[in-house]
């Protein structure tokens, strides 16, 4: 079975803060993996890094076969991220938003229509500007945007939050269907109960690492000696730096 996500001692810095401090993770295609952990454990950063929004600073990171340390952009069309923000244009209607999202990913307007139908957004809601929707409806549109792209890797950050009961059932159905179709799903939640029922496997994060993972050697030794620049710029010799 192909590996969708492969991380070894992956480190990701947000500014100078190590949000991911050495993650080891393997996810095979078609799996639904739940990532749980307390607030601040690094779940959101893990998803964002897998989506290529945040760079991996050290370690190995392979997403859908692409080395993320070489190029973050290459796999973006094959990935769908459901984040905390809804990434919607408030002035555009639901239909416009979804069509744009689909086309940007290389799909066509028909996929947008299907996604809308799936999420119960057809009919009256189609032509409502996104800014006027309730939070729950916006969430549905955001899910529809991911569905319209038909991604190979789904990254869902707290997907059930904000959805009503019907919406949650809908989402569960969509996730199962996606996985059955060969897509991989990585979801983060700090409410494990519902999500655990969905997932085939659970991993726990704490302190920027997946629990039980090894602390990377890459973190040891962080200062670099600058090349001498004439008088006055000498510095003590150090080891390799990750802030290049």
């Amino acid at each position, binding site marked *: 079975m192909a590996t969708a996500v492969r991380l070894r001692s992956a480190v990701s*810095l*947000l*500014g*100078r*803060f*190590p949000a991911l*401090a050495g993650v080891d993770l393997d996810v095979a295609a078609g799996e639904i993996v739940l990532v749980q952990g*307390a607030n601040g*454990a690094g779940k959101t950063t893990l998803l964002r890094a897998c989506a290529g929004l945040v760079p991996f600073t050290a370690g190995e990171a392979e997403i859908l076969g692409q080395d993320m340390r070489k190029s973050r952009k290459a796999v973006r069309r094959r990935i769908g991220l459901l984040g905390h923000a809804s990434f919607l244009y408030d002035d555009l209607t639901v239909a416009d938003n979804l069509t744009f999202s689909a086309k940007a990913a290389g799909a066509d307007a028909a996929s947008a229509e299907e996604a809308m139908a799936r999420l119960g957004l057809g009919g009256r809601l189609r032509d409502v500007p996104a800014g006027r929707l309730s939070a729950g409806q916006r969430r549905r549109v955001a899910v529809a945007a991911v569905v319209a792209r038909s991604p190979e890797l789904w990254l869902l950050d707290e997907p059930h939050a904000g959805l009503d009961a019907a919406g949650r059932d809908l989402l569960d159905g969509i996730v199962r269907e996606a996985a059955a179709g060969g897509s991989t799903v990585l979801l983060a939640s700090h409410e494990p109960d519902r999500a655990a029922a969905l997932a085939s496997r659970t991993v726990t994060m*704490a*302190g*920027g*690492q997946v*629990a039980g993972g090894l*602390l990377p050697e890459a*973190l040891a030794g*962080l*200062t*670099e000696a*600058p*090349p001498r*620049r*004439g*008088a*006055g*710029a*000498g*510095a*003590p010799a150090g080891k390799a*730096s990750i*802030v*290049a």
Partner: protein
Amino acid sequence: MTTKSSPAVRVLGWLSAVTLALTAVMALVVTPGDVNMGDSVRLLYLHVPTAWLAMYVAFGLTTLASALYLWKRTRSRFWDLTAGASAEIGVLFLGLTLLIGSLWGRITWGVWWTWDARLTTTAVLFVLYVGYLAVRKVPASPEVQSRRAAIVAIAAFLDVPIVHYAVEWWRTLHQDASLGSPQRVLDPQITGTMAWTLLLGVVAFTLLYCWLMAHRFRLAWMEDRLADRAMQIAIEERRAEAEVAAS
């Protein structure tokens, strides 16, 4: 890196102080006043070196360092810090240039400012690099600051010939009659001891620039080291979090 500069830099400092003093003596006492402008020409010994140093040396280095920082093969904090330090000194010198030039204009023919090609281009250049320094200080992560600032530096460099070209053209169409022919008056005859003094001034300011660069760069480097150390501590604390969570 220690908090005291190396002996070489200290020598540099003394040398620049000495040459500056010498220039001052030459400028104020030894050389004669200009035929047309009298004693006000002495300001030129300050004005020209600062202008050249700022425009060609300081900003030139900033642009070069920015390009090297952006290019993958030579990317390193070193170039980014060099670009920033050089730009700061460049802005300082250019500010001085504009101030002294303005004073000189006031003394020589009664106006604080005139819209001729060189002055206008210099003013725009000044604002461009003030903008560069502003980008270096934006509230964002260090990588964002450095990367965007580098791009702004290169764009500023691209813009200078455009501005110069445009403004020069503009001014040749509109000779300002009230000042006579400022182009001619702007370049007094400089020969003999005056030329040597000017050269001495350039040397003095070059030494001053190098000394300032050495110190400013060192300061920036140390700030960077401090931030790295803070990150090391942050990583250790993060690891500790994991241990607590596991236990």
